């Protein structure tokens, strides 16, 4: 009887958190289904709901909780409508990939604004007395607030379902999520509904934020902690399926809670395992309609034209000159050690990482959200080899590359059978599996990571320590190691892309079906690209660990996947040098913003403290105004000038891709 009571407790616990997941995932799913927007900022709407509720409740005094429950979600809906109108709308018709960059920027901005307004400290939200303590029903006592959360969630879920199935708006929205083109052909202006849908999604998330505020602290990181589970639920249930979001949300809540108390070893892993298994069996999710994915309109993937202002000879010369400058200038000019040995090395590392991502994302059209997996595994492999086997940097990096290509082969084998957003999510799940796993073992150093005893050397079994060799002008030899790795990675990638292999990859990106009809084994080609990419990312991770002087679980944090995607899009996908340029610009801008806190002028110091928000604003502006990335900047400027002087056509629409 006691065991049954305990089980009942756990199921109710699971339903409570599951309901919050439902509120989050329903909005996310509808927004994706109708608008094709991958909204990373959804978690921030959830956080904003909690923060607005906090302020409303304080302002209205007793009974404020109930006012907040109504008012806060409406306020967030207004914010959501504004976000859609001014930032998302300019991006319609483009590939959903650009929403990642946009909403990633929005996350940074909203988070910094929250810290600015409410401060970084956590708050507790006072629950009204009616909702405190426990209540006994049929001799069984349980928390009143949990019943309340389940009740509110149920009410809203049913209401949303009725709105979707019984109203004209619902009909159009459902039709839009199945086939937007058809709805448009019927003479309905679907775009007008977008603002409504986006605002409604934000409202649902905000309700979730308000009710969760009664159970956990309200802090700036609360959006981050729910966005990944929310995405998983959306994918589990099937993109665009409301029923899927409800079933997925409740299932994840209950399974998570039960596993936590009965199989604690799997805590943190089970949700990802569940998603991987479901996607392998049903690639379209539990309730997803495979035809919707087939009718994917995709939108234009704005890869960069090979022509444009500079021709290829000029570009080659510019590239060679740049590498030569990197090689020689530090030796001739006495640059401060930090810029050469730290900032430049970190740029080379991230350039290599971005290049590896571009190989699969820009060429094969595979958006890997789990690329940090290879970076992190490369870092851990390098450190573990040096600490436990041989101190040689070369051996360690070789092992890192080998391990990462092996991992990439396995992950690729399992993931590449699903496509689109499902691929993004399954790679993310693998990365999160590894991230959770390193906390669980002693040999990975757990949460402390491994910093002591990591002293790599240049020899095979000993020799000079890696960071000790300095050349003329304080330039470390390691600077050249990193430069060589970046240039070598680039040359290897260029060789691959220029070979028939590269042409097939680009053909796959343009049309997978046609490439398959011609007789190519599409999956095999994608997997090969994925393996090469994994190896390069592993090398980047190994170099990064060497630069840091050790490794910690942060090396596997999914946010790094986001950052490297941002760099790639920032620079310009579909060129090999664009993402590398993007990495450089990203890191230099970040460095400048961070160093402003020591600038002296109060205005600059304030900007330095707002560095994340400033970076975010930059992304938002960039994705709207320079959609093809940095490498297209000369063309964009040239065409603007042309247009102003009344001459010339706009740039070619169907641009060919080159390196």
């Amino acid at each position, binding site marked *: 009887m006691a065991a049954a*009571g*305990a089980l009942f*407790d*756990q199921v109710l*616990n699971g339903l*409570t*958190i599951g309901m919050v997941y439902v509120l989050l995932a329903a909005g996310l799913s509808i927004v994706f289904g109708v608008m094709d927007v991958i909204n990373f900022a959804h978690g921030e709407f959830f956080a904003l709901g909690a923060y607005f509720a906090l302020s409303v409740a304080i302002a209205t005094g007793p009974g404020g909780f109930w006012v907040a429950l109504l008012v806060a979600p409406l306020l967030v809906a207004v914010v959501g409508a504004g976000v859609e109108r001014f930032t998302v709308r300019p991006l319609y018709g483009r590939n959903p990939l650009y929403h990642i960059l946009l909403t990633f920027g929005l996350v940074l901005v909203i988070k910094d604004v929250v*810290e600015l307004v409410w*401060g*970084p*400290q*956590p708050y*507790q939200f006072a629950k009204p007395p009616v909702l405190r303590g*426990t209540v006994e029903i049929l001799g069984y*006592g349980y*928390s009143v607030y949990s019943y309340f959360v389940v009740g509110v969630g149920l009410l809203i879920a049913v209401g949303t379902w009725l709105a979707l199935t019984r109203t004209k708006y619902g009909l159009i929205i459902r039709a839009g999520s199945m086939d937007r083109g058809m709805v448009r052909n019927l003479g309905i202006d679907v775009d007008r509904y977008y603002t409504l849908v986006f605002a409604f999604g934000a409202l649902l998330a905000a309700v979730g934020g308000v009710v*969760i505020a009664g*159970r*956990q*602290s309200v*802090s700036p*990181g*609360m959006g981050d902690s729910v966005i990944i589970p929310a995405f998983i639920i959306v994918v589990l249930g099937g993109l665009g399926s409301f029923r899927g979001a409800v079933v997925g949300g409740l299932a994840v809540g209950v399974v*998570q*809670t*039960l596993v*936590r*108390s009965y199989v604690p070893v799997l805590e943190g892993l089970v949700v990802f395992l569940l998603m991987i298994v479901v996607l392998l069996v049903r690639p379209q999710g539990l309730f997803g309609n495979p035809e919707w994915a087939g009718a994917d309109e995709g939108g234009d993937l704005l890869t960069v034209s090979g022509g444009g202002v500079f021709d290829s000879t000029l570009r080659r010369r510019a590239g060679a000159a740049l590498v030569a400058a990197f090689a020689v200038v530090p030796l001739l000019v006495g640059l*401060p*050690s*930090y810029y050469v*040995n*730290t900032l430049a090395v*970190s740029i080379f590392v991230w350039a290599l990482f971005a290049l590896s991502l571009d190989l699969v994302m820009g060429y094969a059209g595979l958006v890997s959200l789990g690329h940090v997996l290879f970076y992190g595994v490369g870092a851990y492999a390098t450190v573990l080899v040096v600490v436990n086997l041989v101190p040689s940097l070369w051996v360690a990096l070789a092992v890192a590359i080998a391990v990462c290509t092996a991992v990439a082969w396995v992950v690729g084998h399992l993931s590449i059978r699903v496509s689109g957003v499902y691929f993004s999510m399954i790679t993310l799940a693998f990365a999160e599996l590894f991230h959770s796993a390193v*906390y669980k073992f002693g040999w990975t150093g757990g*949460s*402390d*990571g491994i*910093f*002591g005893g990591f*002293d790599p*050397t240049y020899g095979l079994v000993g020799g*000079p*320590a890696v*960071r*000790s060799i*300095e050349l*003329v002008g*304080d330039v470390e030899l390691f600077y050249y190691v990193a430069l060589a790795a970046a240039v070598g990675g680039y040359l290897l990638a260029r060789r691959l892309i220029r070979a028939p292999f590269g042409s097939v990859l680009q053909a796959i990106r343009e049309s997978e079906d046609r490439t398959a009809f011609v007789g190519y084994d599409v999956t095999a080609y994608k997997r090969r690209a994925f393996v090469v990419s994994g190896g390069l990312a592993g090398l980047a991770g190994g170099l*990064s660990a060497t*630069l*840091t*002087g050790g490794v*910690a679980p*942060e090396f596997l944090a999914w946010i790094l996947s986001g950052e490297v995607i941002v760099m790639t899009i920032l620079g310009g996908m579909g060129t090999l040098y664009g993402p590398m340029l993007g990495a450089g610009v990203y890191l230099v801008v970040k460095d400048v913003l*961070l*160093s402003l*806190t*020591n600038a002296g002028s109060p205005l600059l110091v304030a900007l330095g403290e707002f*560095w994340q928000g400033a970076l975010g604003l930059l992304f938002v502006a960039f994705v709207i105004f320079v959609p093809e990335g940095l490498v297209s900047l000369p063309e964009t400027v040239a065409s603007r000038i042309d247009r102003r002087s009344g001459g010339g056509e706009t740039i070619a629409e169907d641009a060919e891709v080159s390196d």
Partner: protein
Amino acid sequence: MVDNDTEENRNHCRSRSGRRAFLAAAGAAGVTGLSGCLGSIGGGGGGNTVTYGLLNPMSGAYSSLGPNQRRGAELAVEHINDSDAFDTQVETVTGDTQTDSTAAVQEAERLVNRNGATYLFGAISSSVALALNEFAAEQEIVYNPGGAAVPITGEACNEFVFRTETNTAQIAEAVSAYTANNLGTRVWFHIADYAYGESVLNRVRSRMQDANGNVEVVGTSRSQLGASNYDSFISEIANSDAEVAVLGMTGGDLINFVSQADGQGLKDQVNIMSPTMTFQTVRGALGDAAVGTYGGVRYLPKLTTGDNQQFVEAYRSQHDEDPDNFARVGYESLRMTVRGVDAAGSAEPTDVVEQLPGMEMDTIFGPNRFRDCDHQATNPTWMGEVVEGNGNLPGVETLQKVEGTDALPPCSELGCDLG
């Protein structure tokens, strides 16, 4: 500002040419890049100036705690520079660890090589502090970590690291005996599944068993670091016959656990104790939900030890709120270290680290020192109960004090031997 040529130049030469790296290089490949540097290293008489890098988590997971660390350190700089009791002048440069080891090391490089810092203070999470430990040894600069994990001045200790933060072993000493003898002998341990949680489990469990032979562990559970939903553990504890629940978790994890436990009425069934329960951010976030729980005390503004009241008053007049433990650590890290600079009569970190260990000085906790064998400050600790306060912030009543020398286990037990 700090863009002073000789400072810059000297720091170039320091870069990565630390003693260990230097020996390795000299042994194998000969020395490169060192010529012309020796001349610029000079000792100084009285009135040295040191550049302190304040490297705190201003963004990322610990962004709610970093700013207080920095405020405390900045207050110390004002006091040191205005006071006749100090010969040394302090200049500061600031950085953001982003609660990430890679970012923290990069920022540290910038503060040292670009801004001329030869002293560093900051970081809270243990992986970041451990990364900076290595960095400090390599660069031969003094580092005051803000993290509380034992290995920072334990297995990973080195001669350049001096900690004024109270470590988890000292806190465990304060809470264990009292908990076993007064709160209950049937114990449930719930920890966040990472190094800190494990260390609480191991240390508090063994110290409780030492203190009272009747202590029995009725259950142990672990949640993922950063989890937000603790209902299942709370139900398990409520359904067991535990008398006291010991929570090995900090920050948001602890806040969420206690808040949800309060919602389920767990406080009525068992005593809840956590080594970090009395921390100001935890109490502030929990409000009434924390009242009636127990915890270790590292610092309280109301303490009358040493010159605490002067510190509290100065801090209040600047920030209109009480300092918390992180502010105390910021303040005291700089003050204790600069006392060492004064005593050494030199701004050179290598001179200061000779002088500082074991040096007796007056602090917020009264007479204190960095212990010779591991450079850990011998702070006293207290057992406390969270009680109703005025306004939203509950108060803390101290129940038992453990003196600094009793709270700190021997160096051999913690894994450090600096002699």
